[in-house]
């Protein structure tokens, strides 16, 4: 297997599907010759031309809405929103139109579209370009919400998302774009709704996703060596649909759970994960209260030192795991 970056893996997934299915196309701001704000679509316009790699005006509402309209009538659009923060401008089209069309129409329509958008802080872009808004969309029946954490998952999940007959929000992680990993060549899919256990362990479970995954893996490896604590790491990969079984089974296995995500803790997806465990028979296996470690409940600040500290960091994650295990 060869290594690709997370961004290259996303591009490979799009190209693979566009070669395979003429109904798949990409549209968004600066996705053409510019290659996308983060360079994800570099070179695609050369292969597929401006008809299938469409530069749009700065019009997030109609980008999402036109994708929905094209999807209902037989295309499989991939729409890129430059920053996930800007999906607020697409909100009606995504939430009231794309997500509800099938149900409102009594199951007659399909809306096979993917809305790709980079999420997360760490780029010094401050409060309007750094959010992790995934939990908002998990509250919208009809949408699927995917957050890949590795290059291989980025490819496999995106191919599955493009082939899915529902609107899928695909939240890419800005700080992972340049990370490298083994990625299978050619046809490679990862099913939506299947979690990954990245590391087996027996003392505690850390449930995490997105760019918090590498940080939590590092915490687990260090704790193994430094403290002899064995941490299992579960990455749901898709928040909707959620692989409850894997989450619950891991909680039962270790009896101790820490949930880590970058998004603000209040109202974040960690609350849902905690509730899924507490509502299940895993409750009877718990040896400690379920802990959450989310981002602080503030807009993302600009100053690098402040920005680094509003989201979960390695040292605190280790401390929380130790506290979880040793009380």
């Amino acid at each position, binding site marked *: 297997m060869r290594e690709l970056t997370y961004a290259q893996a996303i591009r490979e997934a799009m190209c693979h599907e566009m070669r395979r299915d003429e109904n798949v196309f990409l549209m968004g701001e600066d996705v053409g010759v510019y290659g996308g704000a983060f360079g994800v679509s570099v070179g695609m316009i050369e292969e597929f031309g401006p008809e299938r790699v469409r530069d749009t005006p700065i019009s997030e509402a109609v980008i999402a809405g*036109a994708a929905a*309209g094209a999807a209902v009538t037989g295309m499989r659009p991939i729409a890129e929103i430059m920053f996930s923060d800007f999906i607020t401008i697409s909100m009606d089209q995504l939430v009231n139109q794309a997500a509800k069309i099938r149900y409102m*129409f009594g199951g007659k329509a399909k809306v096979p579209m993917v809305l790709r958008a980079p999420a997360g802080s760490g780029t010094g872009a401050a409060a309007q370009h750094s959010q992790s808004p995934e939990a908002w969309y998990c509250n919208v029946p009809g949408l699927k919400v995917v957050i890949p954490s590795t290059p291989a998952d980025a490819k496999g999940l995106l191919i599955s998302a493009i082939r899915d007959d529902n609107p899928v929000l695909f939240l890419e992680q800005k700080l992972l774009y340049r990370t490298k990993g083994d990625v299978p060549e050619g046809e490679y899919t990862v099913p939506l709704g299947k979690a990954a256990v990245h590391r087996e362990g027996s003392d505690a479970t850390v449930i995490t996703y997105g760019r918090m995954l590498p940080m939590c893996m590092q915490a687990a490896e260090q704790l193994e060596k430094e403290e002899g604590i064995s941490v299992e790491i579960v990455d749901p990969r898709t928040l909707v649909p959620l692989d409850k079984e894997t989450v619950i089974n891991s909680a039962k296995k270790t009896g101790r759970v820490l949930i880590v995500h970058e998004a603000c803790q209040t109202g974040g997806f960690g609350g849902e994960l905690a509730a899924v465990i507490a509502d299940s028979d895993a409750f009877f296996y718990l040896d400690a209260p379920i802990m959450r470690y989310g981002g602080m409940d503030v807009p993302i600040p600009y100053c690098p030192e402040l920005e680094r500290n509003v989201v979960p960091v390695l040292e605190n994650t280790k401390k929380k795991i130790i506290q979880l295990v040793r009380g």
Partner: protein
Amino acid sequence: MIQISKQKLEEMYEKMLLTRYFEEKVAYFFSMGMVHGTTHLYVGEEATATGVCCALEPQDLIASTHRGHGHCISKGIDLNRMMAELLGKESGYCKGKGGSMHIADLGRGNLGANGVVGGGIPLAVGAALTTKMKKIDRIVVGFFGDGATNQGTFHESLNLASIWKLPVLFVCEDNKYGISMSRFRSMNVSDIAVRASSYGMPGKTIDGNDVIAVYEETKKARDYVRENGPMLLVCDTYRYLGHSKSDANVYRTKEEIAEWKAKDPIKRMRAYLLENGAFSEAEIKSVEEKAKRSIEDAVEFAQKSPYPSIDTIMDDVYA
């Protein structure tokens, strides 16, 4: 003048009548408490939906609005299933889950009514994008009201359709009010069609209460849109009834309503059919009777249909 066949004239008169009778029945059901929720009636505006939709080809698509009964009926619909949807029945177009604001008939090219003002315009643009990319010989009509032209989606959609030269005809039904807000207070242009110039597309305002004029202008617009890309057609019309089921009309005068009722599109069509000698009084009465019967049949079908089972609540959230 485009030559319009007798059959087409009859079809247009019948569709306007069906829309009027359908809605009179719906208003009655509401007053009797037999339909819940809300509905937005199109009474007074029938010539616009009928004139536009009857000028389209069967493969053409429409995206409708919250005030969409006229579009549904004029594009061709199964009235039984439409009435059943309003009564929330399983046999309805949306299995009782959409109601008046979400009726869609994809098989006949109706991409659905829409509960959000301006919400359907981007969908029409997307459908037109499919049309262009797949090189399908059809156009898409995006309906919306005067109020929607103040929404961001109007601006984004017309601009995108224009730069991509998409085959979409934007039809603004200028019925003069967004709920209570007169459009003469909500924008500082007297003619909505001038807004088209911002997007480098033609815009034209026509008499939306004259079904023949609407039909002819839509035919011409359809030809234009297929060849050249989008156009904005503004139909000057008026809503007689309130915005939704209850409305005391405090924002307008009785005189204003009476003035528009004197220009009633159905009365005008009837007079036209008689005057130009194409139809006898007996023929017209026969069309009227047939339309009334169709609505009575639809009511009977809808009332006899069962409500959906509670077991179906979770069906069709995902494909």
